[in-house]
């Protein structure tokens, strides 16, 4: 494998310019990625504080820590901040921004100014939302169901809605930028089937961002019209239909859950391949399963409405489609596992996160089957089972992938190594804390504990036991997340200097200095190999007794 060694005294994107202004007016995708990283970390912190307060309240069945109205605002604001201001932008806007151009051998995204604009839009949406929280907060649940949100709630629904509405445009612009960049700016020789899977998953994510986000924007707008002008769209007292809102909301928000997890799947594909020094098993299946998820994810929104007075037959169709759309996720899990076969697996921190992701995502996905099956969903919907299900996917999945990716690319981003021992230790703490937090909630859900409950019956002793376990787990998880915060900050100054390619990998982003120069590559790279090519293709082995697959069309 060829080695690039770039001598230290040189300029890179971090020291090319100094001063606040050079950051706030930057058009460098890498710096914008870092701006986003700072912003989402801030929102994640706020969201986590709400989570801790919720968990503390639930330690006892009585409402002894907060009033109901405060509690309702806490879970609403937790959801809104985590979903719209952390999970949706998390991987695409930080790692995606940083790496999409680098992985395809481009100097920047197609529209650098629009990229910067997207960050300002995000910040504007975020500031308006924070204003709404400080002014008095919002208590509708992150789902904003009508007519509660339009007619009954007297909290800051409009301001929060405005924040989310504005924030949506940053998503749309990021998606647009990625799609155009991936289509037009690939380095010579970087054919579609040589793209790293991280790029495929970001391509799929971007499709959802530009097709889905306008729908939530319009939905929020309609909600605002009804709240302000009393035009009857959702409120039956004004001649509207409250369930229509749920259809519109989930038409976006189901695909949006894939905005949250697809980039994580992309990160994990990178980690699995690179830390086992193997090409991904079934590359094309993994790539196309991302597209399949993006497209068919738009057809299953009705599984959120099984008990919402949707017709029995609509329920059956949506249930059927939900099972079908689970298959591409299963395909990914099997291919990641198969990639480990006869590999050379290292136990570095990013790989620990990737392995954790596979396990937790599998549990999250399989528990989706309980909710996609009509009979059990009738019992489980709107209970803690649903909470556990989606936290397994969004925390166990997306957050773990984000942390894994952050460690993996940290040398490239910061030019420093993180302390490996602490990394592994905190990965373990996160994994244990996470499972202790959320696995009791599956049981709680089946026992019948509804979600969004400030108090619960004292007689249900087992409920309290499960809640105590969950709160204990959340404390461990919180510590597990604080540790990386500390050592990553520490490493910025004291960490070992990173080489250009500390992991010895073939990916394009590793073929330039760490941190990279502003233009990423001094010379435009020319791609001659498939992604994850560690050994020459002649040595390729055929699995079992199955026949050899035909080479890819663009191969050679």
């Amino acid at each position: 494998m060829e080695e690039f060694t770039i001598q230290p005294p040189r300029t890179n994107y971090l020291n090319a310019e100094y001063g606040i202004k050079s950051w706030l007016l930057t058009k460098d995708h890498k710096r914008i990625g870092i701006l986003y990283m700072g912003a989402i970390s801030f929102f994640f912190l706020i969201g986590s504080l709400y989570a801790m307060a919720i968990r503390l309240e639930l330690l006892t069945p009585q409402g002894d820590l907060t009033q109901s109205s405060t509690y309702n605002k806490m879970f609403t604001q937790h959801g809104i901040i985590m979903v719209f201001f952390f999970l949706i932008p998390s991987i695409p806007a930080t790692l995606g921004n940083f790496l999409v151009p680098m992985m395809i051998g481009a100097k920047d995204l197609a529209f650098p100014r629009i990229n910067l604009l997207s960050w300002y839009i995000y910040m504007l949406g975020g500031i308006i939302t924070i204003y709404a929280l400080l002014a008095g907060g919002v208590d509708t649940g992150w789902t904003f169901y009508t007519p509660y949100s339009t007619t009954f709630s007297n909290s800051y629904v409009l301001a929060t809605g405005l924040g989310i509405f504005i924030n949506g445009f940053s998503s749309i612009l990021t998606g647009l930028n990625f799609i155009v960049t991936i289509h037009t700016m690939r380095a010579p020789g970087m054919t579609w089937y040589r793209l790293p899977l991280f790029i495929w998953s970001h391509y799929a994510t971007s499709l959802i961002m530009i097709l889905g986000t306008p729908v939530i924007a319009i939905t929020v707008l309609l909600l605002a019209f009804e709240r302000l002008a009393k035009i009857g769209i959702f409120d039956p007292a004004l001649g509207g239909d409250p369930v229509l809102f749920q259809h519109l909301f989930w038409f976006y928000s189901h695909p949006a859950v894939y905005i949250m997890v697809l980039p994580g799947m992309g990160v994990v594909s990178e980690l699995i391949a690179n830390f086992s020094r193997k090409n991904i098993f079934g590359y094309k299946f993994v790539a196309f399963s991302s597209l399949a998820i993006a497209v068919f994810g738009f057809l299953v929104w009705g599984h959120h409405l099984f008990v919402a007075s949707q017709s029995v037959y609509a329920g059956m169709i949506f249930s059927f489609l939900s099972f079908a759309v689970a298959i591409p996720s299963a395909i990914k899990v099997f291919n990641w596992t198969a990639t480990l076969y006869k590999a050379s697996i290292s136990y570095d921190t990013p790989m620990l996160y990737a392995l954790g992701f596979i396990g937790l995502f599998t549990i999250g996905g399989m528990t989706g089957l309980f909710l996609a099956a009509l009979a059990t969903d009738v019992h489980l919907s709107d209970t803690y089972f649903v909470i556990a299900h989606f936290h397994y996917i969004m925390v166990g999945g997306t957050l773990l992938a984000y942390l894994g990716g952050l460690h993996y690319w940290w040398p490239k981003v910061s030019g420093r190594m993180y302390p490996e021992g602490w990394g592994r230790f905190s990965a373990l703490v996160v994994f244990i804390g996470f499972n202790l937090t959320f696995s009791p909630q599956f049981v709680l859900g089946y026992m019948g504990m509804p979600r969004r409950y400030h108090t619960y019956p004292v007689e249900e002793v087992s409920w309290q036991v499960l809640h105590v376990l969950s709160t204990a787990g959340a404390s461990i998880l919180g510590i597990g997340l604080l540790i990386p915060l500390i050592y990553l900050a520490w490493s910025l100054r004291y960490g070992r200097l990173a080489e250009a390619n500390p992991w010895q990998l073939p990916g394009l982003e590793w073929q330039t200095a760490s941190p990279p120069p502003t233009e990423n590559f001094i010379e435009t790279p020319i791609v001659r190999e498939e992604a994850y090519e560690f050994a020459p293709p002649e040595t390729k082995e055929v699995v079992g007794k199955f026949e050899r697959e035909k080479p890819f069309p663009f191969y050679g």
Partner: protein
Amino acid sequence: MLMLLLQSWIPFIPESASTLSDDVDAVYFYISGVTVFFVTLISLVIIFFVIRYRRRNPFEIPRPVEGSTKLETLWSVIPLVISMTIFVWGAKVYFAQYRPPQHAMEVYVVGKQWMWKFQHTTGQREINELHVPVGRKVKLIMTTEDVIHDLFFPAFRNKMDVVPGKYTVQWFEATKPGRYHFFCAEYCGMNHSGMRGYIEVMEPAAFDNWLSGNANAASPAAVGHSLYESLGCASCHGANAEGGRGPTLLGVFGSNRVLNNGTAKADEGYVRESIINPQAKVVTGFGPIMPSFQGQVTEEQLLSLVAYIKSLSTTQPETTTAKPPATGTPQSANPVRSSSPTSPNR
């Protein structure tokens, strides 16, 4: 039988007390089995690979392995087939859960921030408590005065949203006497978690006793009849609902109505709409002259009117009692004649 065994072995399963709750548990155990199997399988394979193929020296490069279309097909088809079995089984039970049965005892339910109001067809009202007999199908006809709520009976593995502006239905047949929780499961504002109560499942004799002990209220049908008079319905539909400028209401409920634009089955929702939004469905031969009563009647009064109009039909469902009626015997065809002055609104 197997269910019973499983339930006594597996902790953390809520009380199972309806004819369908065991079926739901069965589906739950089936999916749990599938989940445990696959999660264990994948975890073990990963752990095995991670140990067996750990990096033994920093320079080793494993031989690349090519993908295999056969394997891909295999691990797409197997999960698809398994998930289709779950789908079919789940859909089958759901169909039973949500298809309202014939000859059920009816109870009217109105959700309101933050309480549940119930009324039996014999007139008894309850708040945050519901008494039902064991071994009898009970059909809840539900709506809400304000926001969306959801009436959730964990012991029956059943829930259904109540949605403003329409009626939704939920039914169950309790199998075990006892006192079980119900909850509001759709977030509805400040005191959402306080919107809960108990369903008291009683032996038939005890239930009949309870009914007669509480028999001081007028039945919804009777209340509906006096509303029929006081709201002026009689001026068009006739003093005895025999018709006039408007169609007769005798025998309407449960029949198929021929409209100016199509046909419609006259169920509870149809009757409600005809009162709130009369222009939506106009019976052939009549003009769109009926005024809307939106805002003039509460949801509970509407339910009473529905009950009254039901009582004008021979196909009306039975009234509240612990014993299921002999099938095929139509109930009294006489419209309820009562001029009880009881206010329908407490």
